[in-house]
């Protein structure tokens, strides 16, 4: 057996029976290689560079899609993105936790206290990532709960699984860490914008409208238009602009305050 001879230039993969072993091909991949990153001068500055966004919710709320769209937009505009996801067993109603790290290194996991922004699609899930927040973290939080069915059922069986926490208590526990908390009923706003399924778009609108990210509202929507089917883009347009308005309003309120 021999390898065909018309390999592409630069393809120096060894044949199966080469007499002398040829080193397999180089792994270097251009200017974005790891070495370039390691010698950055800015790396010595204790890091507030880059952007770290956490998106949390429950299965079926579209947190993974939101993270994917964010990644697509940022990559399209030349940013380096690392995005981690953890969704256990892919069950509807389970916790979904994703992170999007922009221009800040290769680790897929955000360390405690280092989130710049949290998009909380659900109150309990938002509170679950409290350890990632600091006084600087901006939190957009949907106040509409998705109550774990197990709570009601166990209370019916008098097994004392506890209650769904009071949403205001959850907001307060987050406010104890950061004053930049913006709770609102995104699920209702999504309904008013056409469909409950646009809640993730509302939250993305908030993030883009806040001006926290290095890309504009228009740039993001161009990406959405490019990667999503037209019908979906249209169905989400109103939700997005409502979300953007919400994000801008919150930022404005904060400046006034």
């Amino acid at each position, binding site marked *: *057996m*021999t*390898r*065909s001879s018309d*390999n*592409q230039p630069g393809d120096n*993969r*060894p044949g*199966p029976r*080469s007499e002398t072993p040829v*080193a*397999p*091909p180089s*792994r*270097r991949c*251009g200017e*974005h290689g*790891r070495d370039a990153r*390691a010698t950055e001068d800015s*790396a*010595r500055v*204790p*890091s507030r560079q880059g952007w770290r966004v956490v998106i949390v919710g429950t299965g079926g709320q*579209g947190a993974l*899609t939101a993270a*994917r*769209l964010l990644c697509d937009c940022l*990559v399209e505009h030349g940013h380096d*993105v*690392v*995005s*981690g*996801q*953890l969704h256990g067993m892919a069950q*509807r109603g*389970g916790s979904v936790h994703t992170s999007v790290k922009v221009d800040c*290194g290769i*680790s*897929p*996991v955000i*360390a*405690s*206290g280092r989130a710049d922004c949290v998009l909380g699609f659900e109150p*309990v899930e938002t*509170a679950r990532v409290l350890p990632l*927040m600091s*006084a600087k973290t901006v939190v957009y939080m949907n106040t509409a709960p998705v109550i*774990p*069915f*197990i709570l*009601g*059922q166990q209370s019916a*069986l008098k097994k004392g*699984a*506890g209650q769904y*926490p009071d949403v205001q208590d959850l907001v307060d526990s987050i406010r104890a860490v950061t004053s930049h908390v913006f709770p609102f009923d995104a699920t209702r706003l999504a309904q008013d914008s056409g469909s409950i*399924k646009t809640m*993730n778009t509302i939250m993305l609108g908030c993030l883009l409208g806040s001006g926290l990210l290095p890309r504009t509202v228009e740039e993001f929507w161009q990406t959405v238009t490019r990667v*999503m089917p037209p019908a979906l883009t249209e169905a*989400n347009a109103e939700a997005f602009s409502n979300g953007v308005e919400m994000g801008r309003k919150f930022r404005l309120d904060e400046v006034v305050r």
Partner: protein
Amino acid sequence: MTVGVGREILQNEPGARACLLGNLGIVRGALEAGVQFFSCYPGTPSSEIGDTFARIAKEAGVQFEYSVNEKIAVEVAFGASLAGARSMCAMKHLGLSYANDPISTMPYVGVEGGMVIVSAGDPAVITSPNEQDQRHFSRLLYYPIFDPATPDDAMQMTRYAFGLSETTRLPVILRPTTRVCHSNGMMTFGPLPSARNEIRFTKNPPRYVPIPVNARRMRKELTQRYRQAEELLATSEFFPRTGSGRHGIVASGVAYAYAAQVIENLGLQDEVVLQQVGAYPIPEQVLERFLASVDSVLVVEELTPVVEEWVSLSAFRQHRDIPILGKHSGHLPLEFEYTPDLVEDAIREYLHLDKRERGSVTVPDLPSRPPVLCPGCPHRTSFYLAGKVFGKKTVYCNDIGCYTLGYGDPLNACDVLLCMGSSITQASGIARMTGDRVVAYIGDSTFFHSGLPALANAVQADDNITVIILDNYITAMTGFQPSLTTPPRPARDAGRTESPAAARFSIEDAVRGLGVKDVFSVDQFDEATTLKVFKEAKAATGVSVVICHSPCAVDRRRANRDKKRPAFTIDQDLCNACSLCVRVLGCPGILVEDGQYSIDQELCDGCAVCASVCVQGAIRPAVSVKT
């Protein structure tokens, strides 16, 4: 909004930058290396590799199969390699153990076309019954093993591994972990090859038949080839060393990404030399150079101290009597995944830096969201009805799949669990010693995976067991891969390869062929018949088998988007809040708020089982159907 996975992975634009899932990076790396054959058995966190190949195989000109189990996946891929093809197979860590038999002899025989086995690890047992460290296979069985830290690593290592495999004739293992498989990271595409290996099997029995006379010769060659792999790895770029200073940190896997990030964040580049270990065997000269430059070492790696012991041994050989810290010294734990915080704490302790202040964040008590069988799941019905017939005292052996969620209240359908196919065999052992009839639950995919020999074994011993095969026509837990009983369906995607043999398989025929006399088939949503059948199976002597056929509720809706069954509702005038439906079914579609019972109209799949459970007759279709 939902985004599908595009076919950008097939684009031939060298230099294109993409942000891809680690598992997709592995696919891209294999395509760039000219992979010609791919097989897999799905298992989290490896499944997206096979699912992506399933979509693109036709277009990419790759022979593809979802194999019946991992041992078979490896053997078929090895056969393809002997015919000259660059071949790959993918599985989770447990699958590699299942394939241990062929894997242990393959390095002796050696490959022709380069062969890469992806075995995805699950530190922290997120979706597995154990965590294990496949890196030990390197010394145990003479495998070069790659240990990527990032999705980019995963792509580049895959691309490189095929060449290394062909040069050394050793099959190669790629061992990504959950955080690499399921993270999106930046990578740069290389060119797709214009030519691929020629396919031809040349007869040469002494080369391919490891009978002792040949195996002894092969064993000698193996030592040489493993050494050759070490030499080639020494010249590779998978052992980058950065920074300067007299402190050294060696790190592997995703823990390397954490260590690099901590060093960058704390600005320690002039105090610490960071050495990545990206593959095994770790070339001696890499460690020599590293150890010569530092006065102490901290090793940062998840799971067992493979690198730590390798480095310690190397230091001993070089008479370098310096502190080598890590797991033995208590800086880092032996168990579970590491986190950036854990790694930062260890590095600070190692460098005698102040502990990081992490303000006092109090997280309130939060309810958890444990995984649960979906509304409309046929498994719930099987467990409920079998429980009625076999009772609380019967031992229920369960197996690997969605049906493991029968564990605990209210279904209590899982008293024993071990590994793929073990429900039948464990039931045999328990039944033989206790003399009581034992029930074994197993799904369709798992039954063909390893249940067949287990059942033959039970028949030959005439064990007093009832095997309930839960045939939902799909491998649901890992993401709806086809099983042998999946009926042919219109391809969801143009490039998707459908098995022409699909639906040719009859579990009934297989079971009868293995000598089982009492074989029953039933749709478990036909409650009366199912109860009758379970009673007959219970009354049988020796092995009895009940096959419950009903499609996975979620897959049924995915396959026919418009055919959601009408939801049910609870008539508040009739409901007396007796809690029976909740006590026996535990369906997430049934909501209880302030003592009031209702059904979530979006979640309800209309399976109607709760309606038959309700003694008040309070549960009815939400929309009355005209008759």
